[in-house]
């Protein structure tokens, strides 16, 4: 079979779905946004799903994903009672729930005053502020290169649009909870988010991904983040999905002069995960911090691809990803740093550290630095090793049982990344989940 044949089923279904979407749109199909969707679909058709021959997908094989049959945007009855079992953190802030891609107003609450930020679903923004949306939508996440971004763009309908006006600090954090309700059937959703932080404004946003039920789920999410001059943002992505979950996500960040971006991507569980975090430092004196923690066990596969593109001088990027791999799990870290010729006086640091607890687990790391400026400070390093046996014996010789000693060591290893999560209830919840996973 040729690669394109392998893709046929899911791809053909999606192309057909798009045609019926257009029929439902009627008049709306003439809008600029829909023209972008149509172009994105064309790109998706052209690109097809990637195979492992594709350099960016060498270790992450989507062939089993595209063999599954999913129901997109499946209707679901999730009530507040169903949420109890998820033991989500109680966050004082704006909480927006999406189930199988659909917004759930009855589960959601928005507490921030309207003058601090505008927070709407993408759907509403398409209807109510199409011109504002069109300024940013699909201007950053490149649907011409990446099939999943193209697919998400083609079907962009549900998600969140956050707009923070200039010189405002939004105190309350915002958390977007994306829930796949896979209790009855295989489900798929394609959330599309856009966060625009205007000059000298500040906001904190977290995205959380969870699964209910044992059927397969597929989440293909794209988030575009636009930081104007002096804007500041904290961004967290937390994944706690089932072993039957497929998750492909791209977060695309664009930073202007003196803006500050701070992120942590924490993957506690999830069957098949690919996270792309792409940051374009399109201004000088920017700062970008990227932290990551992934903790696969069983047969889980977790892939983090990051890209920092230093386009202007005097910016600083800093990256630390850590992984703990158990059982037969696999992990991938691919960290690209570009320093363009104009980006003199760049400081770029990258580090990826892994502990592999079993002989059957595998970690693939690939740092990639491409530097075209001459006056820069760059460093990168990756390590992959076992748990320190000496430390383990030392602890046991003091009376700490082996399992307990192992968990203490693993927790200590993860601790510096966990500490980077500055929203307290979110961090505490992650601490509890990690401790529970370690105690298993």
């Amino acid at each position, binding site marked *: 079979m040729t690669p394109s044949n392998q893709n046929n089923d899911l791809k053909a279904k999606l192309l057909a779905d798009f045609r019926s979407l257009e029929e439902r749109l009627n008049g709306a199909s003439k809008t600029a946004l829909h023209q972008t969707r149509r172009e994105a679909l064309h790109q998706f058709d052209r690109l097809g799903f990637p195979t492992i021959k594709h350099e960016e997908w060498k270790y992450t094989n989507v062939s089993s994903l595209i063999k599954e049959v999913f129901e997109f945007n499946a209707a679901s009855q999730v009530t507040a009672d169903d949420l109890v079992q998820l033991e989500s953190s109680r966050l004082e802030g704006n909480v927006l729930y999406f189930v199988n891609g659909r917004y759930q107003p009855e589960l959601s609450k928005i507490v921030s005053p309207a003058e601090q930020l505008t927070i709407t679903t993408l759907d509403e923004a398409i209807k109510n502020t199409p011109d504002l949306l069109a300024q940013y939508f699909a201007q950053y996440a490149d649907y011409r290169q990446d099939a999943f971004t193209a697919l998400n763009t083609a079907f962009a309908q549900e998600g969140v649009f956050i707009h923070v006006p200039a010189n405002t600090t939004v105190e309350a954090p915002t958390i977007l909870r994306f829930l796949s309700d896979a209790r009855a059937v295989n489900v798929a959703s394609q959330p599309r988010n856009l966060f625009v932080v205007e000059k000298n404004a500040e906001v904190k946003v977290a995205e959380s991904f969870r699964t209910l039920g044992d059927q397969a789920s597929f989440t293909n999410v794209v988030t575009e983040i636009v930081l104007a001059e002096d804007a500041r943002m904290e961004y967290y992505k937390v994944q706690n999905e089932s072993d039957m979950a497929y998750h492909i996500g791209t977060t695309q960040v664009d930073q202007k002069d003196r803006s500050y971006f701070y992120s942590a991507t924490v993957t506690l569980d999830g069957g098949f995960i690919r996270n792309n975090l792409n940051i374009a430092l399109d201004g000088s004196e920017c700062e970008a911090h990227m932290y990551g923690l992934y903790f696969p066990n069983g047969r889980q596969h977790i892939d983090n691809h990051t890209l920092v593109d230093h386009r202007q001088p005097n910016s600083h990027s800093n990256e630390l990803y850590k992984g703990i791999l158990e059982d037969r799990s696999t992990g991938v870290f691919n960290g690209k740093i570009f320093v363009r010729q104009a980006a003199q006086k760049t400081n770029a640091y990258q580090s990826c550290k892994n502990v592999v607890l079993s002989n059957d687990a595998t970690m693939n790391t690939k740092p990639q630095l491409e530097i075209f400026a001459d006056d820069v400070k760059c460093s990168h390093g990756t390590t992959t090793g076992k748990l320190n046996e000496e430390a383990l014996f030392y602890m046991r*010789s*003091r009376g700490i049982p082996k399992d307990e000693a192992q968990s203490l060591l693993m927790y200590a290893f993860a601790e510096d990344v966990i500490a980077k999560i500055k929203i307290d209830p979110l961090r505490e919840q992650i601490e509890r989940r990690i401790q529970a996973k370690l105690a298993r």
Partner: protein
Amino acid sequence: MLTISNLQASIGSKEILKGINLDVKAGEVHAIMGPNGSGKSTLASVLSGREDYDVTGGSVTFEGKDLLEMAPEERAAEGIFLAFQYPVEIPGVSTTNFLKTAMNEIRKYRGQDPLDAVQFLKLMKEKMKLVNIDQSLLSRSLNEGFSGGEKKRNEIFQMAMLEPKLAILDETDSGLDIDALRIVAEGVNQLRSPERATIVVTHYQRLLDYIVPDYVHVLYKGRIVKSGPKELAFELEEKGYDWIKAEVETV
């Protein structure tokens, strides 16, 4: 308390302990001396349960129980403590948290209730004074970036906290300045009681001025080749090991 009979241990195909016999009674202090590489640390490690070594023969009983059957953590809970020659650095785990976990695990093993935060802190304060160790050191990551002397002092602090029945000190004196040496010795002497015993591995007679042993043993090529009263240590200090080596070779 501790009876070691004909203990043999190897690592890979290398035989290191070739038949150790030693009897330690409650209340006693035994010093073990001997040239580099003779097997002193190996003996200490085997007693505390390090899994890198294969015990190929002999037996060890501790208070009537088969020690070799026990996991390292069980040995600790039974009352054995090893002060490491090279204490391990453990980033991200504070000494305080580590010790609290260790103490409460040992208490659990013994069927005792865990210490609460207040009780633990009180005990810690008391023992900190004893070994003259600073609070700031204990809230840092365990041994990480500690000086050689600070690491050794931290070992004695842990020993003071855990109050073992049998303490094995592997060259706890090396790398210590005179004041620290005295503090360490005091820590050990405080624990001396008719119910407890200590094995002190050292190269220097100096330590034995402070911790006066009941017996001195010389370990050479995996065997205890000579035992005697504390005066043996003076003789070794004066004459070195050549005469003992010569004695062993002629036998």
